[in-house]
């Protein structure tokens, strides 16, 4: 008998769910920015959030590590269950949460310090290293994971802001993984990068999938198609469609998704 390969085999949902979000609402003052969003984000999977500007995808991403806390007028309701624990529980300290759910931002934003200090900062404030040797080890491991070790190993003392844009962004990713997070949030990580640097970061994201649950917000649909396994389409604060990336990009079930991915008016 021949083993007939099936399309379904590649996307069997056997992975455990990392983030379970139910009935999530976000208000900015009177503005209802996120309406009734429910979705499950899997472990060891890259999930892409796409949608037009102002659709709420970044807002929703920032809910996942409570970065919206820093905005006074933002109000978040609903269940955000990370491994069964609601991250908006009163007992949860956002600082601890952010060590578990790392974040990479749109603009590469290394601290104006040395490359070493950039990566070592997170482990230092969380007390992950007992001594200098351990810290060195963590830094090297993070820089290797960030796929930038070979480029910077000889100049760890030079400033992080002196690197090129793509290197800076990979440094920021290394900085984010240095605290051993379980979920990695990326808010348009390649929008400020050239195509080569973008490709390097995308390759890195694909490698990170082995260890983390990665959530990426992107304006580039091609990028979402390239790096993600699951795609969520947001429109006017609603989660319109959530499913396998292959299906979303060839045969979306909602006309709004179809219009968006094919570049149509409407």
């Amino acid at each position, binding site marked *: 008998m021949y083993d007939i390969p099936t399309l379904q085999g590649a996307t069997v949902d056997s992975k455990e769910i990392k983030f379970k979000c139910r009935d999530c609402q976000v208000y900015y003052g009177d503005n209802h920015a996120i309406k009734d969003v429910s979705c499950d984000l899997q472990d060891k999977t890259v999930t892409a959030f796409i949608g037009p500007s102002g659709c709420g995808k970044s807002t929703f991403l920032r809910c996942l*590590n409570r*970065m919206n806390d*820093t905005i*006074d007028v933002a109000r978040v309701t609903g269940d955000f269950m990370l491994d069964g624990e609601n991250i908006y529980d009163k007992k949860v300290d956002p*600082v*601890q949460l*952010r*060590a578990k759910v*790392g*974040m*990479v*931002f749109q*603009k590469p*934003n*290394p*601290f*104006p310090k040395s490359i070493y200090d950039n990566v070592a*900062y*997170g482990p230092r*404030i*969380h007390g992950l290293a007992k001594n200098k040797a351990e810290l060195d080890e963590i830094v090297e491991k993070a820089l290797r994971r960030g796929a930038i070790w070979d480029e910077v190993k000889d100049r760890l003392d030079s400033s992080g*802001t002196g690197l090129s844009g793509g290197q800076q962004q990979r440094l*920021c990713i290394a*900085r*984010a993984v*240095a*605290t051993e997070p379980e979920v990695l949030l990326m808010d348009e990580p390649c929008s400020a990068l050239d195509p080569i640097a973008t490709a390097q970061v995308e390759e890195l994201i694909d490698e990170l999938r082995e260890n983390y649950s990665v959530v990426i917000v992107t304006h580039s649909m091609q990028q979402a198609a390239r790096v993600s396994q699951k795609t969520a389409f947001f429109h006017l604060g609603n989660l319109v469609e959530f499913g396998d990336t292959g299906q979303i990009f060839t045969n979306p079930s909602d006309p709004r998704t179809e219009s968006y991915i094919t570049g149509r*008016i409407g």
Partner: protein
Amino acid sequence: MTDATAPSLPRKSKSLLAEDDRTKKRNAAEKRFKYYGIAAISVGLVFLVILVATILREGTPAFTRTAVTVDFVLTQEQFDEAESAVLKTAAYTRLFSQFVADQAEEKGVATDLTDEDRAEIAAGLERIMGKIGSDIRVHYRENPDDVGSPVRFNLAAASRVDAYLNNGQSRDGFVSSRFLEEQDLDLIDAMVEIDMIGSDWDRTFFFGSDSGVDNPGGAGIGVAVVGSFFMMIVVLVLSLPISVAASIYLEEFAPKNRFTDLIEVNISNLAAVPSIVFGILGLAVFIQFMHLPQSAPLVGGLVLTLMTLPTIIISTRASLKSVPPSIRDAALGVGASKMQTVFHHVLPLAAPGILTGTIIGLAQALGETAPLLLIGMVGFVARAYPDTFVGGFTEANSVMPAQIYTWASRADPGFYEKAWGGIIILLVFLLTMNIIAIILRRRFERRW
């Protein structure tokens, strides 16, 4: 899909080689504006040059003084005679004058002097050298062993002599007075010829204290500099931490509501309040209510702290605001707490701006006069340096600008040049502070 698909109108192509009228007009306007700018800067530069030149011309004479240098020998008999006289200082003056007249005769300035001439010269010398007798008497009372041997006296001449020699006052316009008579000028010229009168650095001006209203030669700014120094310590120690803490709280932690808005508006308004208001407030609160010592640098520092706070707060907030939010995001994103974010990342990046603002605030405080006059830090209150470090804060003293103001308001023309000299010293301090500000900013400045 857009209106761009509408049929385009036929286009008339123009040559790029010829300027059209519109372009010509615009270019001319641009050129005109450039000239306006250059003219404005030139006017500013001219004023600056005039200002600096005037200050230097008027002020530098204050750094030197006209002194009479004489190797005086006082015999034991003369000493006894003077000490037994009724008017002891007058006796010394007479003895010294006689000695100088003898010297002059010896060196061939005047010959065949009659006693009448001698008396005239002695009277002239008294006018030239002011209250010379008391200085000589003090010297011999403190050093009795010097009696009988030559002692080099280097004594300040009267301020009118200084004005005559240094300021190039001409003889034609000279008006005799009881301070200096026309014939004294001949004597002065003669003494200059034999090097008995000459200029030297006025140490008294740099290191001395204020003097009486009729003795500009004895007036110095040193004590006022020390007063300014202690007052600035108070201002720095109080205003920097208070205003930085207030700015950080307002900028990073405080919720944005009506109350904080109100505070912000008030801080901005406070920066515009006239300084004299702070002076009268200090008088009422610190001196009359809290009974702190009058005229003390401590009180002056407190008053100027109130005045400097809004300046530093505004500049600190501006530099905190200028730190890119991406840095805050980055720190929060790796799990730093709000305070760690501020102290590890935001504050170091804002430091150059904060330091600049602080130094500008301090410089402003250093040059402030009006509020200090109200709390009694006028020129003449201190005649000596404070004895202890604590005394530096609590003992009555003056500050540079108040001292300058006091001198400028006095009648004796000798104080006029002292005031200009004081201005130069003050400017040197301000310039130094500004240079420090620039150096600090350069050092701490980081790009991101």
